[in-house]
């Protein structure tokens, strides 16, 4: 038993916003990369992920044999994408491009992180990966993630 205080700033706002997020656990050493323009923002998407049929829950079990209920240090890193039509619209080809580059870049550095992270999400290439803005955003996301992760106390 114990009190837990959860501070939620504006990550539940999804209207006219889109995000790339990385859900991870330091103690179970996994990371899940995703994108959303969900009306309920990151919090809404996280709710779906931890649900019984959520893709984070399923992938974590399939790829690492880990039951999400045992993970007690789930952390969400999220990055708000520019509020432009290509990112916040129904068509997700631009968000998918950033998601792909974020995941592949994270995989490249995953062994250098302390502790290392295994990637459990699936990802598909999008033609928009060749656009400079997409590459630039993905690079910023990874830079900020690595910096955040490295600063955290394990």
């Amino acid at each position, binding site marked *: 038993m114990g009190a837990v205080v959860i501070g939620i700033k504006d990550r539940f706002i999804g209207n006219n916003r889109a995000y790339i997020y990385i859900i991870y656990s330091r103690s179970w050493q996994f990371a899940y990369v995703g994108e959303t323009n969900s009306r309920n923002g990151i919090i809404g998407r996280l709710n779906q992920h931890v649900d019984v049929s959520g893709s984070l829950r399923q992938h974590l079990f399939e*790829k690492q044999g880990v039951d999400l209920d045992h993970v007690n240090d789930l952390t969400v890193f999220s990055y708000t994408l520019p509020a*432009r*039509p*290509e990112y916040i*619209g*129904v*068509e*997700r*080809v*631009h968000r998918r491009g950033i998601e*792909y580059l974020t*995941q*592949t870049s994270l*995989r*490249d*550095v*995953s*062994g*250098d*992180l302390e502790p*290392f*992270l*295994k*990637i459990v999400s699936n*990802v*598909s*290439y999008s*033609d*928009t*990966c*060749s*656009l*400079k*803005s997409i590459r630039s955003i993905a690079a910023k996301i990874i830079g900020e993630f690595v910096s955040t992760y490295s600063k955290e106390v394990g």
Partner: protein
Amino acid sequence: MNRSGIKDALQLGASDTNYPPDSLSKFGLGLKSAAFSQGEQLEVVSSEGNDPFAKYVVSLPEIRERREYGAVQEELSPNDCELIRNYLPERRGTIIRITEVRTKNHPSIRATFRELQQKLGIIYYYMMPALRIYLVDKEGGKTQCEPYDVLFAEEADRNGDLNEFEWDGQTTRWIQRQREITLDPADNVKARIEVTQLPYPPIFENPAEIRKKYNISAGNYGFYVYRNKRLLSWAESFEIITQDQDFYAFRGRILIDSSADEVFNIDVKKSQLHLSEEAHRALSDGSDHFKRKSKKAWKSASEERLRRLNEDSLGQANDIASEIELPEELPGELPDPDKYEEIDRRRKSVSEKQKTRLKDLAKEMAEEIPEFPEIETESNGEFTEEQLQTVVTAEGATINDRIFMVSITEDNVLWEPFYYSNQDCVRINKFHRFSRLIYEDNKDNGTLTVFLNLLLLHMSAAEFYVIQSNSRFKQEQIESILAEYRRVVTDYLAHLCREYSQLLPSDS
């Protein structure tokens, strides 16, 4: 090798610890299994230079008779002595001889020589030219094996990176220049990977020669894995590069050292690789990018070929569009002289706005498209007509086209009306899901794409018509409503493709 070294080499099996870190050896079975796959007897003649040459023979018929594996020491034959004189003048080195070669169902000597020459050039590519390998025939004719780079990296260096949408199929290009990937974060196992796109043979007048030069065929596409700089696996698919003719020009190379042996699960013949799940995922995720680029480039070259044969649908639609003159007034809409002035004003306004749009596009394209150059404006801040033409004709279009397939549209809509050179045109967003459904998933249906291209051109032209001729509403109001309409159609079609893709028809 001295006598003890020869005996060790002929033992069956050896521990990993017997080998230095970068050794090509691993299990202690390679020499024997390779030799006995070809003949019945293996002979090793060797000296380190300090002692006389020693010779040991392993004979399969004798082993069968003895019922015990082993090697027998023999005296050097006159032929051994001659080989030492000719090839080991410093009186140190090793001769391996396989005798009683099985000839049944074996390819001809000439075919074997030809195949060996190329394969040795590929297998020992990184060791050459320091390592010199000669093929010598019975008459003493000597041919040196040349290094053969399966990726044709020097050509790719000259030609640059692959733009899959514009590649004409005639040059080798980089899909991925060499970079490090992490195969297993737990042990931080790394590999280096590089991928090129070889030329597209059918685009050439002599496709057979091109296929031969680049070794383009069913058994040669995929990843070539080099361990400690020697080829370990030839055109490996890893079940990632599927069997598909569209991947024929895909050449990947993975460079590993002994630290990656575990994640590659190298088998005893070092010929079968089974990636660990983690490594497979890492390679598969990264390769999604390479595969898409390679396949798209192959198709793009194929379309280029068709275009040359004047059979491509975009070219066909543009050919038709070049003939089309739209009526200035529609039937039933009587010309009203009072409106002429307003129509003229709006026409000029549309034209001015399009010029501004073109300038914005020049900047957006320089920002977004890697190979599009940044254009310097004149001293008055304006672009020259030639510069604007560069914008219009980017991404493979010609100056007389009216239908453009592009990477950027305003607000990322499916289609954007465009007015250039006194003509109604349309820019179609090739990245939109609906575009890909039509132009990629249904590309064999040329008629469909011609009609869609013409439909979007006419919808664009109709927008300009309404903006210019409908004086009941303000120009800005009409423009705003039409833009909003396009945005909604764009999102509805994205929703259709996303939610109901399984119901929608495609070539495959």
